[in-house]
């Protein structure tokens, strides 16, 4: 299953997959106090054009002097010439990235890893469940589905955040909310006066939906604690173990299957994942 | 009555405060308060094993750590009757000289020179006199690297152990270093000439001068103690009999006297007592300088340190040659742990340091005593300060203070050593 799904072309033009390409920050949007959305363009036009990816893949963002961090691509694969990264300030690299300004240059390696099985999902219903920052990779998938909406059946999006101020991509949700071909459900753990959505854990939303287990794909991404409960709900709806997909966060240093940090069970999250089916994940000891 | 104090005098190693009591422009009293907190090394080593002692006492001073290490090892070897090889001694000498090079360069350029060129620190020299600044760093660096080559690192040597060395430097590196030391002689000469050109006040210290002496060399690693004016020479094992320590209320460091008289130890004492033993170039330069034969002007301690730099470079070149040519081993000698007492004395850059220990038959230390050069010098320093202050009392405040600081710094005090 593993190797075949990974991108195996050597990334950099000189054949050094550790060497980042310079990329320019072309826009920065403050999403919340801790998250910003960056738009990046690889400076070399040839490489920029050649940069093709799948929803669920990630890049290594490099800031020289600080280090590298794996970040999921948030924009849709159908949008070319740039990528969007939704980044939470969580430490050294992400902190340094947050200090960058529009026009600054950072390093980029990728696309890396195995994304969601977009082709296989076609012709089916899709149930997407995100918690917190987990919306970052899922947004790429949602956008991609959006661009090829006619290929899919029912599309349900569940998204839970801790409180209204932490809800990411509000502008997008406001757009999708008014479309009847997306069933969008938002919930927060703690609400405030202005909040008109649901209150409670994301699992609560399952009460409100019907799933056709024979032709529904699931895609889940969120903090580690979330998976167990969301999957239990999906299993209650009789969804197949090999049609539920999830994305894993692990420590990564190289992103290309060498450094060993992202080992999860018998696999590596960077090249065998970060997206795994639930069946695969069940077989990864210590994964969930 | 007014009281002038200079708290935490800058550019000396450790914390001390100068206090001058004035009645108009009449100097009533002058003191050097050592506020450096006591660290209790002597009681600390009691109950520790013989092979840990040099690690502990090395931490008396970060500048003369190689000397404390070597002195400590010698005292324990003396107590347990352990002879060491000539090769071990040569390496130990290199270690001591390494600390001379690094210390003298630091003291002369970083601590003292700014006084004579009217700067708060040496750093501005990097721009105004890059050649001088680079020379300072070059000598200092060579000292550090000599300590690193032999001891494993510049501060607190690792390889010097009881009876020998845990590891010897690679002969190829030793060879490279020999050439580098030979090269350094010219920089040392330039240093001596520069300090000789600085104007110093006419002044003569009232105390005696004590240093180690040897019949056949410029004593640094070993020897007897000699007194310049009292004229005696006695084995270091008797140091308790010829040095008396006293406690004073204003100072965390004790003061020493010899035969009831304050005395000075350090480069000036060594040059006075052993000038005939200097290496050729050092002797030649000394003869060409303004320093007189028996020199008791404390301020000239600086020039004497510079002369010692020349001597150190020449001498270490010779030692490297011997280490490369003569065989022998520095592998630690086998020994039996036994009870005993012993004394070790070595010349630290700023004067003679004495360590003595008693060891029980289990190898654990039962008592220890350490006298550092600065502790010996403090009494003499205060006497000098008292004698010198009135001669500059009518100068404007800033200049008066600078004058006093210059005198204090000339001693190359190591206050953390003094309060150990």
């Amino acid at each position, binding site marked *: 299953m593993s190797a075949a799904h990974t991108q195996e072309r050597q990334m950099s033009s000189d054949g050094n997959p550790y060497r980042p390409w310079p990329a320019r920050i072309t826009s920065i949007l403050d999403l919340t106090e801790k998250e910003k959305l960056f738009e990046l363009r690889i400076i070399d036009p040839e490489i920029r054009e050649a940069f093709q990816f799948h929803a669920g893949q990630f890049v290594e963002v490099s800031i020289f002097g*600080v280090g590298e961090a794996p970040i999921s691509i948030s924009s849709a694969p159908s949008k070319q010439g740039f990528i969007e990264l939704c980044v939470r300030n969580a*430490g050294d690299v992400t902190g340094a990235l947050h200090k960058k300004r529009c026009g600054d240059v950072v390093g980029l390696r990728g696309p890396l890893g195995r994304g969601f099985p977009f082709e296989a999902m076609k012709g089916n219903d899709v149930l997407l469940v995100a918690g917190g920052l987990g919306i970052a990779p899922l947004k790429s998938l949602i956008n991609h589905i959006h661009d090829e909406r006619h290929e899919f059946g029912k599309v349900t999006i569940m998204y839970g955040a801790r409180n209204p101020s932490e809800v990411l991509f509000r502008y997008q949700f406001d757009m999708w909310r008014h479309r009847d071909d997306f069933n969008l459900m938002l919930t927060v753990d703690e609400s405030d006066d202005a909040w008109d959505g649901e209150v409670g854990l994301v699992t609560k939303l399952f009460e409100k939906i019907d799933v056709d287990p024979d032709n529904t794909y699931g895609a889940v991404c969120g903090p580690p604690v979330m998976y167990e409960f969301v999957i239990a709900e999906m299993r209650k709806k009789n969804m197949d173990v090999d049609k539920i997909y999830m994305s894993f966060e692990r420590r990564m240093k190289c992103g290309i299957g060498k450094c060993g940090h992202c080992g999860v069970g018998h696999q590596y999250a960077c090249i065998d994942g970060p997206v795994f089916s639930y069946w695969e994940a069940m077989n990864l000891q210590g994964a969930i | 009555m007014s009281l002038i104090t200079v708290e935490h005098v800058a*550019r000396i190693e450790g914390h001390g405060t100068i206090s001058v009591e004035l009645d108009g422009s009449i100097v009533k009293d002058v003191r050097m308060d050592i*506020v450096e907190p006591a*660290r*209790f090394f002597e*009681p600390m080593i009691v109950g520790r094993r013989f092979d840990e002692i040099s690690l502990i006492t090395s931490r008396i001073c970060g500048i003369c*750590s190689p000397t404390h290490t070597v002195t400590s090892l010698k005292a324990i070897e003396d107590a347990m009757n352990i002879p060491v090889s000539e090769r071990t001694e040569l390496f130990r000498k290199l270690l001591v000289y390494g600390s001379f090079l690094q210390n003298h360069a630091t003291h002369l350029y970083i601590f003292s020179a700014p006084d004579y060129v009217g700067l708060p620190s040496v750093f501005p020299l990097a721009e105004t006199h890059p050649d001088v600044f680079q020379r300072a760093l070059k000598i200092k660096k060579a000292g550090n690297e000599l300590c690193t080559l032999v001891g494993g690192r510049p501060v607190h040597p690792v390889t010097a152990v009881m009876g020998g060395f845990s*590891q010897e430097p690679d002969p190829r590196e030793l060879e490279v270093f020999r050439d580098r030391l030979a090269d350094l002689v010219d920089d040392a000469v330039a240093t001596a000439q520069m300090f000789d050109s600085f104007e110093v006040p006419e002044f003569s210290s009232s105390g005696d001068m004590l240093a180690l002496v040897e019949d056949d060399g410029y004593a640094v690693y070993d020897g007897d103690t000699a007194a310049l004016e009292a004229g005696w020479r006695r084995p270091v094992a008797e140091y308790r009999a010829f040095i008396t320590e006293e406690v004073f209320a204003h100072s965390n460091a004790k003061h020493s006297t010899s035969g009831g008289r304050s005395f000075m130890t350090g480069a000036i004492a060594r040059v006075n007592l052993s000038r005939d033993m200097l290496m050729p170039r050092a002797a030649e330069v000394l003869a060409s300088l303004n320093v007189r034969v028996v020199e008791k002007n404390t301020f000239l301690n600086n020039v004497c340190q510079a002369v010692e730099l020349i001597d150190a470079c020449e001498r270490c070149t010779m030692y490297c040659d011997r280490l490369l040519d003569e065989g022998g081993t520095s592998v630690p000698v086998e020994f039996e742990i036994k009870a005993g007492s012993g004394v070790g004395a070595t010349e630290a850059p700023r004067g003679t340091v004495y360590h003595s220990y008693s060891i029980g038959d289990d190898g654990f230390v039962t008592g220890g005593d350490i006298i550092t050069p600065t502790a010996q010098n403090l009494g003499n320093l205060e006497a000098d300060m008292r004698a010198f202050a009135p001669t500059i009392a009518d100068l404007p405040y800033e200049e008066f203070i600078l004058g006093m600081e210059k005198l204090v710094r000339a001693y190359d005090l190591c206050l953390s050593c003094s309060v150990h």
Partner: protein
Amino acid sequence: MAPRVVIVGLASDFGCQVQMTNIEDDLLDVLGLIDLQYWQLASSGHMPEEYDIAIVEGAVTTQEHVELLKRLRKTAAVVMTIGSCADTGGILALANCVDPDVAYAAVYGKGPEVARGRRAPGPVDAVIHVDYRVPGCPIDTDEFINVLSRALQGLADRTPVDPLCAICKTKENVCFLDRGEVCLGLVTRTGCGAKCPTLNRPCTGCRGLAPDANLEAARAAFVSKGLDPTELERRFDLYNAAREVTR
């Protein structure tokens, strides 16, 4: 604007400050990064009212030190300790093993009380929060420059938490335990490049207890190598007598 830095010494042998001057080749580069406002060892001048980074050497042994540290913490955005004395109490904390009055009498006899406000020697972080640390007795100059660089960039403190043996292995040293000698590398904080074992001397624990050390297992390892397990604690006291561990 370069951050304003003060360098302050408590009770110590100045060894780590000396090490800071021992970066001859890089001294000017490093000084170029900061606005050095106060360094008693190297320059005249007074401690300023305001500064951004305080670098502290030495153990806390007097009440004055405590006051000084509190002042530093209030003023400085970043406090960095250098050396074992500041980090663990270092060698000076060995004095804790001796009754202070006995110690005092041993040094000063019946003479007047001169040691002001004596306290049992301890580390800086027992008094104030420390942001960055450079452990070791003395500090390693490379590590110092690196930690300073991290502090200047606002990166997280990355004082190592693992024991020494791994790096010792990379130096291809024959393990002291296998030679029947006590070595403290099993439990000592890594980061020195296994300096001592590589110079053929067992580690004496100058960088303090590795936060992730397994003391129980280390004692068991000593026993299996035919060594006295109580020597582990006794030797470890050398630089770490102020530590709090369950014995």
